[in-house]
């Protein structure tokens, strides 16, 4: 028999510890355990922290009884990992009762269980980009000559976001488009593949049409948590509506000021819609824990420029003023030179501990090229996750964790990293903490005892072989298609590790750290910057045809969205933000184009800016 007191001590430490470091508003969110809640959370308002506390609270107060569970939907896999790792650090271990993942992930999950009820096989694969392009090309050459593949794809994606399928004879589809769409679906189906859009659209259909699926999953998930709700589209709204409607309660976190995915069919009106549908109570988290005062004030002045928004206060907690700089350079070259100088200076003065605390943010991916070239010439390390030569997914995370461990076999941090990767791979479902640790220890033992173990980039494949990663992937994959994908991604990663290490002359530790976001300036687009934070940011290319994008100029909603993109980018900074632009650049056709600084900069009162020396 277990020692009854062991249990009890655990109990006491969980229940009686006051909830630390939460504001009264946040406590309100945590303690509202039944009913539906819409939480409007500004940037840096500690929403992940609050949600984590809430999940812990729901379990420790037995609000969710055994064996039932909680569904937590986040917008990105990174956010899901973050949430899991925070829960883990709080001692949470009942992973078979909490499902954390993205909308697509949840769709994938229920479709692999009961997809047959909406006419697909449960062992479907997900189409990869190359394959999809082939299919699109094939469809176009057969059914829709002259159309660009990416346009067809956009069109199909948009249909799926609305839950429209070709068989439905929907009047919204022109007949030629319907035929092409039907052909596309047919080809996917033949290969037993789904595309990304299907994962949500079919899952919603499954929840609507299969009583069994709906009963099993709504019955199991007694509580629903959703993050970044302002970026949901109609199908995602529907998914949450179905899942949360009969739950004991839900917490839906949103910030309509950070809605930047309109181009992907997101509708910030969904926040109001879900509030109405569920009859939710609204709580606003208006304290910014992240940024220094001047950045919060500048952000406020930008966002308040929008007429049609729910008014929200934002209050900075930081007692420091922080810094805001702006400068218009005559050319891209000069902008690049100066930005790189500033970054070097921050590093020299030891303002940052790690290059990774500095980010260069741009509205689009090409505008940053001149900066990258400059950094390359001065050999300043930079890293852009979007330019990664392999797919960033759990199996590569596991592979990198094992490589990291191989460099430092005695490090408990690295061991922990392997354990976390093991657990995150969906295996959390079958294993508890201890077992994941066992797996990690076994990996370490294999590495430690194998005479062929040499921690060099060229040896990466050998290291993974020694760790018997292949067997692990096999154990943890739910189908052979999964397994093949895992293996392929991992092999691509190994090749990339070697290639990049050679070209940058890095050791295995350095390259692994680099992929973890350390030791290099982070280069990132505004959209991808969401949810991240850095000590220093450089928002470059702030010209009036880039942010706001020139295609957005005519429509007020588009301009508003561009403004929010700027708002999101700016609020990534903890201590300082540099806003730069160039008044001249070469257009794609080779002629010189004159530009003016972004209109959004002028929304920020002059007195907020510190003087810069160039």
């Amino acid at each position: 028999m277990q020692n009854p007191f062991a249990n009890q001590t655990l109990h006491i430490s969980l229940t009686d510890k006051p909830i630390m470091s939460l504001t009264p508003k946040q406590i309100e969110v945590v303690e509202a355990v039944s009913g539906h809640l819409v939480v409007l959370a500004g940037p840096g308002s500690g929403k992940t922290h609050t949600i984590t506390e809430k999940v812990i609270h729901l379990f420790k107060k037995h609000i969710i009884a055994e064996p039932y569970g909680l569904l937590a939907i986040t917008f990105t896999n990174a956010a899901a990992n973050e949430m899991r790792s925070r829960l883990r650090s709080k001692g949470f271990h009942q992973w078979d009762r909490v499902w954390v993942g993205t909308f697509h992930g949840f769709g994938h999950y229920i479709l692999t269980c009961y997809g047959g009820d909406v006419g697909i096989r449960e062992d479907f694969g997900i189409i990869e980009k190359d394959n999809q392009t082939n299919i699109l090309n094939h469809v176009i050459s057969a059914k829709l000559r002259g159309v660009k593949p990416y346009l067809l794809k956009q069109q199909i994606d948009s249909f799926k976001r609305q839950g429209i399928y070709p068989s439905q004879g929907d009047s919204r589809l022109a007949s030629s488009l319907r035929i092409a769409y039907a052909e596309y679906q047919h080809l996917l189906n033949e290969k037993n593949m789904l595309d990304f859009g299907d994962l949500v659209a079919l899952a919603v259909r499954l929840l609507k049409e299969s009583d069994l699926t709906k009963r099993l999953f709504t019955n199991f998930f007694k509580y629903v948590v959703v993050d970044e709700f302002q970026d949901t589209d109609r199908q995602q709204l529907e998914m949450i509506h179905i899942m949360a409607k009969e739950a004991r309660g839900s917490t839906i976190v949103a910030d309509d000021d950070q809605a930047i995915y309109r181009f992907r069919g997101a509708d910030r009106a969904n926040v109001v819609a879900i509030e109405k549908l569920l009859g939710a109570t609204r709580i606003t988290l208006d304290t910014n824990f992240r940024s220094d005062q001047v950045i919060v004030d500048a952000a406020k002045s930008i966002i308040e420029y929008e007429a049609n928004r729910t008014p929200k206060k934002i209050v900075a907690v930081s007692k420091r003023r922080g810094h805001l700089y702006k400068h218009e350079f005559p050319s891209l070259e000069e902008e690049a030179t100066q930005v790189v100088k500033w970054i070097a200076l921050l590093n020299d003065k030891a303002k940052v501990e790690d290059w990774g605390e500095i980010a260069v943010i741009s509205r689009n991916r090409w505008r940053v090229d001149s900066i990258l070239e400059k950094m390359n010439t001065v050999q300043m390390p930079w890293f852009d996750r979007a330019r990664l030569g392999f797919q960033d997914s759990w199996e590569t995370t596991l592979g990198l964790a094992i490589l990291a461990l191989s460099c430092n076999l005695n490090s408990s941090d690295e061991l922990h990293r392997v354990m976390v990767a093991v657990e995150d791979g969906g295996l959390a479902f079958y294993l508890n903490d201890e077992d994941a640790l066992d797996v990690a220890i076994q990996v370490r033992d294999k590495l430690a005892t194998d005479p062929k173990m040499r921690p060099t980039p060229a040896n990466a494949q050998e290291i993974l072989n020694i760790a018997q990663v292949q067997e692990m992937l096999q154990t943890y994959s739910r189908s052979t298609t999964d397994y093949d994908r895992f293996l392929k991604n991992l092999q691509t990663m190994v090749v990339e590790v070697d290639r990049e290490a050679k070209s940058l002359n890095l050791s295995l530790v350095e390259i692994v750290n680099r992929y973890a976001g350390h030791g290099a300036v982070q280069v990132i687009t505004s959209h991808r910057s969401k949810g991240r934070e850095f000590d220093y940011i450089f928002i470059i290319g702030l010209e009036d045809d880039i942010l706001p994008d020139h295609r957005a100029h005519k429509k007020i909603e588009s301009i508003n969205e561009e403004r929010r993109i700027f708002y999101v980018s700016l609020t990534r900074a903890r201590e300082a933000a540099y806003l730069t632009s160039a008044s001249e650049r070469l257009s794609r056709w080779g002629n010189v184009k004159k530009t003016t600084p972004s209109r959004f900069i002028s929304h920020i009162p002059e007195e907020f800016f510190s003087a810069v020396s160039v």
Partner: protein
Amino acid sequence: MKIRQVSIRNFRNLRKVDISPMKTTVIIGENNAGKSNLFYALRLLLDPQAERLRLDLSEDDINDNARAEGETYFSVTVEFGDLQKHQDVEACFKERIDMDGDETFITIKGKYEPDDNGIYIWKSLVLSPQGRSNNPIPISRRMSRAIPLYFLDAVRDAARDTRATGRGLLSRLLDNANYTDVQDDVQEYLRAANNALNKGREISSLARGLTNELTSLVPGGQSDIVIAVADEDVSHLARNFRLNIRRRPEFPQYDISRHGTGLQDLTLIAMFRHAVASEEKGKPILAIEEPGAHLHPHAQRRLFKDLAEIDSPVLLTTHSPAIVKFADPSSLILLRSEARNETTAYQLDSKEIGDDDLKDLAQLMRNGRAEMFFARSIIIIEGQSELIVLPHFAKILGCDLDRDGISLVQANGNNYAFILRACQKNQFSIPAIVTYDADALNYNNTLLKEAKRANLIDEATYQSCSKNTQSVFSDRKHVLDNIGWIGAINCFEEEVCRAGYLDIVIQAIEDADPEHQSHSRALDKYLHKNSLNRDEEGISSFISNTKRNNLKIPVARAVANAVRNVGQVPYCYARAIRQAIMVSMDGIPVDEYFERRACEAGYLNVILEMIKLENADAAFEQFLNTEKVKKETIGVVRFLTESQTGKGLRNKVKNAIADAVEVTGCEEYAKSIRQSDPSYISHG
């Protein structure tokens, strides 16, 4: 919740066993039939402590025959149904729920087989629902906690299950119990008790002595040895918990192990019932070996009812007809070891057997005939007389009905078609030999009706014999002969009279009322009136036509007592007994023990006749005299295997037995004896 199906493949002697348990399932079978293995297989999959059992597995647990055929696994598959009524269980298995109409169910499977490296490992999986293309998923701890199996073994150790340490039931029950409200008090009393004990003169001096020894071993040792009633550390208090039982309030409490095994049994089952009622996480299943073996009949019956009331599937094994008699016939599982190292499970197929039959069977079992389900073959007999006499006939034939597992089942009022149906191949598959009194064929078509209801003859045959024609008796007899039913000449009494028991029967009639000789006088009056004689026909006519049923039993007793002296067995009963034995033995293998087996199967007198026919009498008697053995099985066997004359007879004996077997209606067995290699004779 219910268990829809259990399928075992290749586990020890359970090569292929499929059963459909009911709410309470009663598993019966001879020793070594595989009852324990069936439970063991279930425990491997469902017992919360299964990890320990799985460690003990090896390749040897795979059925030998299966391994010989190249199958390298064993598996246990269980279907749990009615989950729609248990949302918490359903929730644990939400990824792989299957549906059958409104009922939801899951199929879980444990398999022991080699992995890629050839190392044998156990895997527990939730199988993919029918028609879905996803893979099975491993069973998580939470899942297995949702459907735990509690097992009480035959050699129950009440002490183990009523201690809070280890893995017994009590420790599971106490798992969530909180006693912080009294823990300070208890600690104080324990200290006081320990102190009181150590004030004892001898105890304290023993403790001092031990402490002195210890001190010399431990450098700078401050440790004291104290002889204690219990640990004083309250955090370990629960380990000392145990169940005591007080028979009456004024009696002292005793540890449960000091009470009788019957009371221990009841206590364990009470604990289980409580566990079921209070179980928050999932729905437990109880598997219990030989419940109530130590209880008196009323308590057994009560126990069975208690088990049936548990809101949870219960599986039990038993050897006790007293337990079986209360079971639902469709919940009976018969395990029979058939081929070498292979056991087959038999269960009634309710779809075929029908509700009326089930009711009749239940009634039969309640009336104390449940024993027939333990039999290897049964003989249907007309009444009480045969029940009294047949075992004696069997004995002089050289066989023992109990040893060979043969049950005599009375055909109560000629309604036994349901028994025959239940015994058919696709049901319990118990060979049934039917005997009847042929006089009934003169009066009505009832016997053919039974045969028809037992699906042995068709409607047309039945109809063709329903009219009272000139030849109706022989027509009916012919039909019954064809299906192998064995008719006594008119009735039991006539049959025995014809077999040489006439005087015995007459004497019995006279003895029945020695004072007034009322029966004897009635007999004479009857015979006179009907112009009959004091012969076989007259006597049987008297007994059956004057409804002197009170004579039947005295007559039967008298015959039974005379069997040894008369030494005759009426042909029809000899045939029935031999046939029953032949099927229960599944033929007589022709090897060096052939003659011994043949004698035990009831062919002793066949051999004796053979010896007489071959004029070997003298040699046989001489052999018996010199060797000082009796003219019984042992004498015959030794004569045939040791003496020169005897050896010369062996082949003839074999053929004579084959002929006799054929005459009993077992052509197949006769054929296999005849065709067997006679080489044993020369080597013997």
